[in-house]
């Protein structure tokens, strides 16, 4: 059974997503909504990791497998600047969150096949929040895109950051 590989992947991806939300929160602190909401969503990811941990331990986390390892999403190492930079960073978060979202779906499939009520309860608690994270990212990106791509100065240096 390889569910443990997926559980390990999910656990790590939630942690990576949490760190990346925090990175964007700090890197774009001049956008107050992004700052506060990314921190709030990072806490949601922390909570997902916390409730997932007993399941991971029950199945035995395996982070050593070579093949799925390549599926691990890299977190954001740094944030960009300016309106286009914000859009790109939110888009990176969107990709990470999508990875988490679809992984929850696969874990749910396996949990159903195993009739593991405990695991399914954890999925129910978390996957809706991940879906909302995706919707928020898309809402915010859709709002930011026209201004960033059409009206804003192309060079980040020209962006007058908040004092």
């Amino acid at each position, binding site marked *: 059974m390889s569910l443990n590989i997926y559980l390990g992947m999910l656990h790590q991806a939630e942690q990576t997503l949490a760190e990346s939300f925090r990175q964007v929160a700090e890197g774009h602190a001049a956008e107050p909504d992004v700052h506060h*909401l990314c921190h709030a969503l990072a806490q949601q990811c922390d909570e997902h990791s916390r409730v997932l941990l007993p399941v991971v331990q029950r199945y035995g986390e395996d982070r050593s497998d070579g093949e799925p390892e390549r599926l691990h999403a890299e977190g954001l190492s740094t944030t960009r600047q300016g309106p286009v930079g914000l859009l790109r960073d939110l888009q990176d978060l969107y990709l990470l969150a999508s990875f988490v979202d679809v992984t929850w779906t696969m874990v749910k499939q396996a949990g159903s096949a195993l009739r593991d009520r405990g695991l399914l309860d954890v999925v129910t608690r978390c996957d809706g929040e991940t879906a909302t994270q995706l*919707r*928020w990212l898309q809402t915010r990106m859709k709002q930011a895109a026209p201004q960033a791509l059409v009206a804003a100065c192309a060079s980040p240096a020209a962006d007058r950051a*908040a004092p």
Partner: protein
Amino acid sequence: MVDRIADIWGTRTPYPKDGLWPVRVDQALQEGVTEADVDRWVQSACVLCSNGCACDIAVKDGAMVGIRGRAGDLVNHGRMGPKGLFASWQGVSSGERLQRPLIREHGRLVECDWDTAMDRITERSRQLLHDRGPLSHGFYTSGQLFLEEYYALAVIGKAGIGTPHMDGNTRLCTATAAAALKESFGADGQPGDYTDIDSCDAIFLYGHNMAETQTVLWSRVLDRIAGPDRPRLVCVDPRDTEVARYADVHLAVRPGTNLALMNALVREILANGWLDEAYVRDHTLGLDELRATVEPWTAEAAAAICDVPAADIREAARIFGTSGRVLSTVLQGFYQSAQATASSCQVNNLHLLRGLLGRPGCGILQMNGQPTAQNNRECGADGDLPGFRNWENPEHIDELARLWNVDPLTIPHWSPPTHAMQIFRYAEQGSIEFLWISATNPAVSMPDLPRIRNILATPGLFLVVQDLYLTETALAADVVLPAAGWGEKTGTFTNVNRTVHLSDKAVEPPGEARSDLEIFLDYARRMEFTTLEGGPLLSWAGPEDGFEAWKECSRGRPCDYTGVSYERLRGGSGIPWPCNDENPDGRVRLYGDGVFPTDPEYCESYGHDLLTGATVGPEAFRARAPSGRAILKAADYHPPHEEPDREYPLRYTTGRTAYHFHTRTKTGRSRPLTRAAPSAWVELSPHDAGRLGIGEGDLVRVTSRRGRIEVPARISDIRSGTIFAPFHYGYWDRDGSPGEQPTAANELTITEWDPVSKQPVFKNAAVKVEKIGDATGPAPAPSTTASRPSAAAAGPRSVQPTAGGRQGQATEWVGAAPPPRFPEAIGRSGQDGRP
């Protein structure tokens, strides 16, 4: 004569439950003028709060000389509040009015003629549209223009230029009211009516200091309280307001914790089975989610967060759950605090759970702060589309495009219209380079003023300011346009309970000042905005053309005006919309049939996640099959983002006093009002004052991470650990800048907003307070309001009672006429209404 500065709410006229509120006609004339001297009375309604009191303006020798409440109007039954009595015409009659346009030359504002000013605007506007496109343009307007003016601006912005960057200061005052109504009911539209005060068994005031923000409405409550069968009263407010003093339960919550309280109240209703199960089943969606969300919020859990006794929360819930008819009113204590929309939706949920909607005494009043805020929401010069249309619904966009005869692609609808805080952010970043501000003063009213001043001074930003006076904001403008004020132009506006009033022109504006409508139409003409056929986009000759155009835009929508006309509004009472074939005299309350505007083809919004503001979207909304049912929305409580810590150990909240409106541009020009509340102060509790060694009137410095203010301290009965500052006191009556002793409350507030309504969080910040000087007298705070000195304060009682003296006198005629009733009070088409 009555001193209406000392007696804010005037003479009591008690009445029983289900009785008619007696008439009391209030009048104030200029000193030395008698009624016999008045040449004519011109019909209008007051614009100094959102209540919408109908009045007549006294005119003598071409000047406004007095005001009188209209006995036959359903809103106020003749009454006026102190601001209406003493700052309506007085507030626009000052010699300091702008009389000619100003343009910036070599860094200085100099007078010019209209052609020069408008040429400068259109030249820059054209250039930017050519070089950078419509997204370079932003419009920030008001809650104090007339309906016709908002609609003109909306058409210019959405169909002429095609920019999504349009909002009003309504974002600061009423955005959450609209957002909560949309989330719960599918569209904006006030469910309740003021007559619900007449018929209710209990009134809940959530963050609503009605006694000071809508003084005439509070008179109505006081008259019920003075009657034989007073309603129970529950007040949620951290201050010991006049409302709190009459309350059966006063929940003085920690600022920023409203949602914890609301979740607990909802939980109590569910746990005690005080719900109308048939109503919930037939008319709502989402009970299971709501139940799950509030489940952890026991009265004890909320009591620990809110710092109020659990027993009081239970008692409040019991009053809500067991009273026959309940009226709820909500205002800035909820709208400008953390999790604003979620908290306000819980008020809607309480009513839905008990089925207390659409019947006499069973109402919700999600209040507005400003007189014409409702029209900005309807007409779409703010973050909404005209006629409560849904930006996510392509059919609605096509309707507008057909109405205006423009390409649907011109109308920005790829995302919600840009909210005010984001408009200013784009200006800060340089992507909005043309910002037109009308009838509002962000240099004092927006949060984090040091930042806002920097933005307004951005060198690349072309700033147009249109106002009555040279405000703090106007001082930063490239072009200043002198606008006509109230009484100097004709137009309509709509109050909190959907009542439409006409305000007729009484006198000529000073100098070359022009109505906001004339200015907008002139801009549209000069910019040559056209329809698809090449005709002018806006061909209105005046306000009545604008009103008729608006009626077509509103046809079939919740705010249907098609049955209203200028003719019908003259003479009789104001008319509550919807007014159409189905409701020929308008409609007192909405949702009596339990059918809500949540049909996906009809609704104004598909809703949002209340924690993040993520849009639900059309597919997910349709999948829930709301079919006219209301939606029980909920979110879990999250602590405010700035909480007290070691460096900034106190909570900071802001608000208004009964004697002033906004940044005092009008009320600051009224002598009796200015004498009652001449300058800034802060309030702190006797406990905090004792701990910090601060006495009444001592000069204190209040500091947050954003800035500081230095003002005298009033020791009041505010909850301990919380500091309050009135937000009225900017710098126009000093030298226009904060100087060494800043006084504007928003020097300290945080740049943050609610994720759904995008309303800024003015009512929660962390501050520290220190004494910097000894008192030279008591603080300049009124003794008649929530700023009343605490009886528990140490030291001598030196505070003089606030009074108006000779200049604060008004005449009151109690019972001057029989009380008006709906629908008899409404004027019919083709006949004169009653005087």
